[in-house]
């Protein structure tokens, strides 16, 4: 299979951006870091193994703030990210996408998230509250007009104060000056006007959130640190299963409505491709796309006990994920899959991608088997176990890092990381992971 020149071009452009860096040294460091990552992605041997750890709320822990503080206080949020990155010096840093989100969640009176200070202790990261936010008999509504579904069915269900939106008429019905006369009446009721106030506050909080991200990422880029991704997406099955149908809903759909389920996944491919590439282009055309996988996994090494059988994986989960990956790759983007769970039983299926175009980040995996099946085809990432990072000692960490590098790092095409992000990681353990990788991960 041919590797993809668009991906090569895009990575090259990422390593040589038209950015007016403040000094030559900063520019040099930025180019070295991006090149290190780009080389690994393209299965070459960089000067040493790149580090782009998934930090998320670890930023808060490292800087001595609570999770609640960084969700509300822009100064503390920014300080925690800049302090962690400049101290630990990764090659790519994690954009803090969950920081400064408290006001947004409050604005829509979120029913679908518990967050520090709101249902959770102040030092615990947020949790998603699953629900059947799309009912079993609503596939037709979703398929005929997804935007309408999100605005008038989904949003009112996940919020405590937007119910008035479900009382409005679909906007597809407002096509003429004479429909416009009455089309807005639903929002002109007392409840409707209240909902407009909610949207006003929500829009402001959302704007402030985006401004915060632009500011913090911009500052770090000017200090010579690239973010390690510029967009996020999900497997179409997960888009449907995580936040719309819910776990129980989508599992039953595989048996009761397989055709509609597949049709919805196909529709979501196009929606996700557009969403992802728009975001990436807004973020300097950043090549790497973060794709966490949820429902396609097995639970154990030999494929037992998981969220679906191998057959269901091949029938429902992989085809539309692979299609989405293909569109991204054809447009020069690098799908970075986070294979949550254990994908050892699925390795032969997921190796079917052009060489040097994807990153596969492992949680649990048979490392030797992964190296055998995916080596020379996919850049591998991971996978120092999270329990060592949260409960172990720096010596335990070094041992685990050495093991990863010895098995997965040989020959290049490898990026160092932990299996998961966590705010419970001990700072001294993260420091040990970073320092030891920079020492032991040099390619001779």
């Amino acid at each position, binding site marked *: 299979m041919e590797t993809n020149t668009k991906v090569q071009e895009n990575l090259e452009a990422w390593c040589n951006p038209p950015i007016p860096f403040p000094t030559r040294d900063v520019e040099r460091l930025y180019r070295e870091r991006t090149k290190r990552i780009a080389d690994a992605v393209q299965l070459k041997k960089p000067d040493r193994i790149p580090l782009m750890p998934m930090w998320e709320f670890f930023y808060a822990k490292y800087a001595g703030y609570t999770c609640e503080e960084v969700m509300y206080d822009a100064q503390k949020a920014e300080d925690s990210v800049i302090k962690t990155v400049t101290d630990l010096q990764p090659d790519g840093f994690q954009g803090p996408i969950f920081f400064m989100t408290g006001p947004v969640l409050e604005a829509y009176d979120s029913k679908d998230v518990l967050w520090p200070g709101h249902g959770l202790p102040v030092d615990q990261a947020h949790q998603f*509250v699953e629900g059947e936010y799309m009912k079993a008999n609503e596939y037709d509504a979703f398929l005929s007009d997804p935007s309408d579904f999100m605005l008038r069915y989904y949003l009112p269900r996940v919020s405590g104060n937007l119910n008035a939106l479900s009382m409005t008429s679909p906007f597809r019905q407002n096509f003429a000056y004479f429909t416009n006369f009455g089309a807005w009446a639903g929002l002109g009721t007392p409840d409707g006007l209240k909902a407009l106030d909610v949207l006003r506050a929500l829009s402001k909080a959302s704007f402030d959130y985006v401004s915060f991200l632009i500011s913090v990422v911009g500052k770090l880029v000017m200090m010579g640190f690239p973010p390690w991704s510029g967009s996020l997406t999900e497997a179409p099955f997960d888009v449907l299963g995580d936040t719309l149908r819910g*776990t*129980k809903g989508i*599992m*039953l759909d*595989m*048996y*009761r409505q397989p055709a509609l389920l597949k049709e919805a996944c196909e529709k979501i491919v196009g929606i996700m491709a557009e969403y992802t590439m728009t975001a990436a282009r807004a973020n300097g055309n950043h090549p790497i796309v973060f794709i966490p996988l949820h429902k396609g996994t097995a639970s154990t090494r*030999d*494929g*037992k*006990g*998981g*969220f*679906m*059988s191998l057959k*269901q994986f091949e029938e429902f989960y992989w085809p539309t994920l692979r299609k989405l990956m293909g569109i991204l790759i054809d447009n020069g983007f690098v799908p970075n899959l986070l294979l949550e769970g254990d994908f050892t039983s699925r390795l032969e299926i997921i190796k079917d991608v052009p060489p040097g175009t994807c990153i596969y980040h492992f949680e649990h995996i048979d490392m030797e088997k992964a190296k055998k099946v995916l080596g020379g085809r996919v850049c591998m990432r991971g996978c120092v176990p999270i329990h060592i990072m949260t409960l172990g000692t720096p010596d335990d960490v070094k041992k685990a890092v050495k093991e990863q590098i010895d098995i997965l790092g040989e020959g290049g095409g490898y990026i160092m990381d932990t299996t998961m992000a966590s705010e419970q990681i001990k700072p001294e353990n993260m420091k040990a992971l970073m320092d030891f990788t920079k020492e032991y991960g040099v390619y001779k």
Partner: protein
Amino acid sequence: MAADLVHALSELKETEALEIVRKRLDGGENPLLILDEARKAMGIVGKRFEEGTYFIPDLIYSGEILQAISEMVRPKISKEAAGKKAGKVVLGTVKGDIHDIGKNIVAFMLDLNGFEVYDIGIDVPPEKFVEKIRETNAPVVALSGFLTLAFDAMKATVEAIEKAGLRDTVKIIIGGGNMNDDIRKYAGADAYGVDAMAAVKFAEKVVASR
């Protein structure tokens, strides 16, 4: 004809299974026989899950079909037969954890096997467990939890039961993700279970020994 329901349910043939139950109930058959076959079928489902030929979606789907069968059968069970409850069980997911799929399957299986189940839901604080035990005098308590933080919540629940002077009146089993004897000891429970049938066997043992 008799084997059809076991086959249909264990093979997850929803329409067929419900049609068989409908025909047999209309024919005046003893509903307890139907439930007995449903139990056998669930046993096969459980075994296949252990062997790795069935997965979580299969457990959930079989649970749904079972629920539908239960609802069809329940009104036909004579008050007398219904009154023969094997014993009471207080069941819930502990504080801080909102997982419920496994707990719900356990509730079905206990109910199917004649127990009176008091399912007090998810994210249940220790006091609520204590309250329900006092109210029902249930001899069996089943604590469900999936996240690692559940182990501490299970420990706290057992301690609350102790503090209330009720520890000797109950036997406690814990279940959920990743159960083992170390966690059982940590929580102070009497037993742990790795699947729904373990809860049934435990409850039967406790009631038989009284």
